[in-house]
Structures are given as structure tokens and as C-alpha cells.
């Protein structure tokens, strides 16, 4: 049987949905599940997928050859994951045709759903300040942490735009945070440099990677789980090294 045009469309649809979800920080299990559900709805061949953080291999059994797509850039945008998830739900409920869904996914891929930078910066600063209080610091260190956290986050975003290497951006951001915290303490504005640093570093912590690594390992996606774990470990080391360099200066 010669595969019809529709078969290819379904395959592209599955791959695009999977790609968007994987690029923006969904768990491997969710990516595979979404692709299998969409393929299952159209009932063309048995879907097989192999998903790792850097690529997706997908085939519809015995109908069309397998297709591979490479994931080069990964970031954290849970809004897109949610949106792609609801589009796939609409497909399996029969509310969208494959063409409409594909168009919507393409639009979603191009859209920039992230909060404006100012709001992100504000969020990072406020949460840095709040973490100081949560980790038993005094209220007099709230403002210094607000400053350091904001500075660190700005540094991270801009350096990451400049240099593609994420670990370097994290390293430098942590370094700047440490430097700022010790300077503030030297000027008498901050009281406990330790608490300020811990609070300010928290927005950089690879929380999504850690949770995803655990969930992936648990659902049997060993390759993805281990590589995400390695990513989280490297990020944590980059932050730690940045702070360590500051220690060795002071």
C-alpha cells in the first residue's frame, strides 16, 4: 500500500508537537505520550518513538520510513508546553482537523509567549529577597539580596544571549552575585554575605532539570534521565565554581 498524503501530514503533526514540547522543557514521557496519542487518534500504523533531549526519532510502523529531527536549542518555556498540550488534546477530542492543528502549532512555534524582561527581572529579584527570609536570614538582608539577585539574573540573560554556552553564563552570573554580595557587605549595606548569596543564586538553580531527570528516570527513559541529570549537575557545578572564585579572591 502506498502511503497517502494524509499519512505524511499526521507524521509531521506528531513531530512538530513533540518538537515544541521537548524544546521548551517537557518531560520525555510527555513528549512520547503526546505523539503516540495523536498518531493513535488517526489510527495509521503503530507509532514508535525514541526521544532524547537532543533529538526525536519517530516512525509509523510499516507505513512510512522513520523520521529524525534534531533539537539544537532547548529553553524553559512552560507556557508553550501547556499550549502544545492543549492543542494535542483538541486533536484527540476531534475538535481540530490535522491541517488546522498543524497551522496552530506552527504559529505557536514562532510566537514569543515569555513575560517581558522587566517582569522576569522583577520576579527574579523578589524571589531572591524572599529566599533570604525563608533561609532564616534577617529582613535587613532583603534589599541587598533583591539587588544581587536582579543583577545576577540580568547578567545571566545577557551573557547567555552573547555566548551560546549556558554553563559559562551561569558561572559568570554566580561570580557577579558573589562579588556584589561581598561588596555590599564591605559597604555595610548587607549583613550576612552567605545568606545573600544563597538567596540570589536560587533563581539560577536548575530546578526544572532536576525534576524532569527524576521523572524521566522513573518512567524508564534512562538515557534522557541521565543526560538531564548530567546537565543539572554541570549547571550546579558552574554556579558553585562561580561562587568559589569569589571566595578565593576575598
Amino acid at each position, binding site marked *: 500500500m502506498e502511503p497517502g498524503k494524509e499519512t505524511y501530514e499526521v507524521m509531521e503533526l506528531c513531530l512538530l508537537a513533540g518538537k515544541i514540547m521537548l524544546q521548551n*522543557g*517537557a*518531560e520525555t514521557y*510527555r513528549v512520547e505520550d503526546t505523539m503516540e496519542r495523536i498518531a493513535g487518534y488517526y489510527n495509521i500504523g503503530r507509532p514508535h518513538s525514541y526521544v532524547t533531549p537532543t533529538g526525536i526519532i519517530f516512525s509509523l510502523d510499516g507505513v512510512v520510513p522513520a523520521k529524525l529531527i534534531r533539537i539544537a536549542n532547548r529553553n*524553559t*518555556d*512552560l*507556557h*508553550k*508546553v*501547556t499550549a502544545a*498540550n*492543549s492543542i494535542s*488534546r483538541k486533536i484527540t477530542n476531534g475538535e481540530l482537523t490535522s491541517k488546522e492543528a498543524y497551522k496552530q502549532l506552527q504559529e505557536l512555534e514562532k510566537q514569543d*509567549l*515569555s*513575560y517581558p524582561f522587566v*517582569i*522576569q527581572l522583577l*520576579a*527574579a529579584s*523578589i*524571589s531572591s*529577597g*524572599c*529566599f533570604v*527570609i*525563608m*533561609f532564616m536570614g534577617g*529582613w535587613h538582608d532583603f534589599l541587598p539580596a533583591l539587588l544581587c539577585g536582579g543583577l545576577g*539574573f540580568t547578567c545571566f540573560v545577557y551573557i547567555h544571549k552573547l555566548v551560546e554556552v549556558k554553563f559559562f553564563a551561569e558561572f559568570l552570573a554566580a561570580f557577579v552575585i558573589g562579588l556584589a554580595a561581598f561588596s555590599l557587605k564591605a559597604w555595610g549595606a548587607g549583613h550576612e554575605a*552567605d545568606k545573600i*548569596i*544563597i538567596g540570589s*543564586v*536560587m*533563581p539560577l*538553580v536548575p*530546578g*526544572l532539570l*532536576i*525534576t*524532569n531527570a*527524576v*521523572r524521566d528516570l*522513573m518512567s524508564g527513559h534512562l538515557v534522557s534521565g541521565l543526560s538531564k541529570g548530567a546537565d543539572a549537575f554541570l549547571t*550546579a557545578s558552574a554556579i*558553585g565554581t562561580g*561562587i*568559589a572564585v569569589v*571566595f*578565593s579572591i576575598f
Partner: protein
Amino acid sequence: MIGQLITSFFATAGIGIIFNIPKKALVNCGIVGMVGWFIYVVLFENHFDPVIATLISAFFIAIMSQYYAKKYKMPVIIFSVAGMIPLVPGGMAYYAMRKFVENDYNEALQLAAKAFMLSGAIAVGIILSEVLNQTIKKINKNP
């Protein structure tokens, strides 16, 4: 204590914004973080071991996230990821790093081991809640 509750709410919601969680989920996200931190602090102040406190807190965070995920038809990670952040042993890792730089390896290794145990506790907490969730699903399917 009230200060802890308020700050934990804003801290987790703030982390949520950095992860670009949709607006309508941000408040729930903050609530998950607040409850998780409240449980941790209460256990910690009642002289529970930090590892156990982290485990129980992570367990409840995961349970709440699963509840919200079902209610709002959104992926679970949206709710759980920000709530877990306060439990990450950032402070412990920091002091470990500091001792390493000061060449105090004995102390540093102890702290690093503790930080490792705490991260493990978060993982076990998530796993336990997942297992519970799946068991409930199975029992509901064939009683």
C-alpha cells in the same frame, strides 16, 4: 511564621514567572510552594531530620500538583517545578563549596553528602507520590 508563608508564596510564584508558567497557573503555583514550605518548616521546627522533612514536603508538593494538573488539565510539572525549588539544598551546597575552597575537605565532604541526601529525598518524595497516584488509578479502574 507568617513572614515565611508570604515569602515562600512570592518566591515560588517568582520562580514560576522565570520558567514562564501561564498566568492563570501562577497563583496555584505559589500556593503549592507555600504549602510545601510550610510543611517543611513545621517538621523542621519539631526536630525532624531535614532529609525526612524534605521527603514529606516533596511528597505533598507532588500530590498537590497532580490534583491541580487534573483539575486544570495542564501538565504536572507546571505546578510541581516551582514548588520544589525551595527544597533544593542550595544553602548546604553553598557551605560545602565554601569549605572546599577553604581546603577543609572533611567538613566539605560531610556537607556535600548531606546536600546529596537532601536531593535524593526530593526525588524519593516525587516517586512516592507518583506510585500512590498510579495505585489509586489502578484501584479505581478495577475495584
